[in-house]
């Protein structure tokens, strides 16, 4: 894996390896292998998986819908913010869309960094922020044949962390 900048420095930003919304099956192991060069002492992979129950109801399927074009931009933006805030060296993030059955992987967030703390911080930041502003929705389908769109967060205009940008009349 190629790196940018000093080979033996503490900060070797490799950047955003992948930031995508996809209908393909996800595999955290793939990013675990791809991320990290020889100056990275820590790699963390988070997999979000579809659970077979929620709030006491049996879940048979989760359907994810996304504003695909915007979602990829938002994932890219969140990843860059996480790198800038924490000094982590590389991030890969993938969110699956379509119909998923338990225990399919719906989300993979992978981070590499020189040390463990920036790796944890970047990983948590990406997940918290994507829950806040990734234009993506899920409908749970239950064993009794009913289904429900799950409530979530209202994204804030201009809420782009360190990189707040306004537009229009302001």
């Amino acid at each position, binding site marked *: 894996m190629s790196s940018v900048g000093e080979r033996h420095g503490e900060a070797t930003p490799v950047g955003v390896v992948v930031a995508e919304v996809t209908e393909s099956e996800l595999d955290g192991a793939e990013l675990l292998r791809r991320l990290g060069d020889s100056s990275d002492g820590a790699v963390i992979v988070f997999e979000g998986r579809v659970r077979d129950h929620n709030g006491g109801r049996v879940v048979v399927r989760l359907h994810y819908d996304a504003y695909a074009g915007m979602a990829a931009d938002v994932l890219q933006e969140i990843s860059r913010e996480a790198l800038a805030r924490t000094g982590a060296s590389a991030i890969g993030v993938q969110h699956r869309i379509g119909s998923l059955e338990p225990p399919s992987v719906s989300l993979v967030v992978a981070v590499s960094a020189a040390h463990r703390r920036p790796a944890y911080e970047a990983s948590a930041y990406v997940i918290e922020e994507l829950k806040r502003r990734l*234009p993506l*929705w899920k409908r749970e389908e239950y064993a009794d044949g009913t289904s429900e769109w799950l409530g979530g967060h*209202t994204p804030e205009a201009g809420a782009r962390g360190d990189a707040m940008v306004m537009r229009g009349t302001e």
Partner: protein
Amino acid sequence: MSGRFPVHVQLFGKHREIVGSSVVELELEAGGTVADLRGLLAAHPVLGGWLGGCAIAVNRRYERDESVVAVGDEVAIIPPVAGG
């Protein structure tokens, strides 16, 4: 610029389901803002009751009520998001 222009508002999640379409077409006055767009959506017979907690994206960015919408802008209503 004067007069009215068409805006194709993209729908997602529950909105798409209740409207039965992935887009609604509205007409905005020249110089119209996100707030004006929200006003038109509130008057929509089906969507009107389902705008609580929604954001508006213009050209793939979340925009404040004061932002102006221009001809050709890509506009979408974003219901509360729930990724992960």
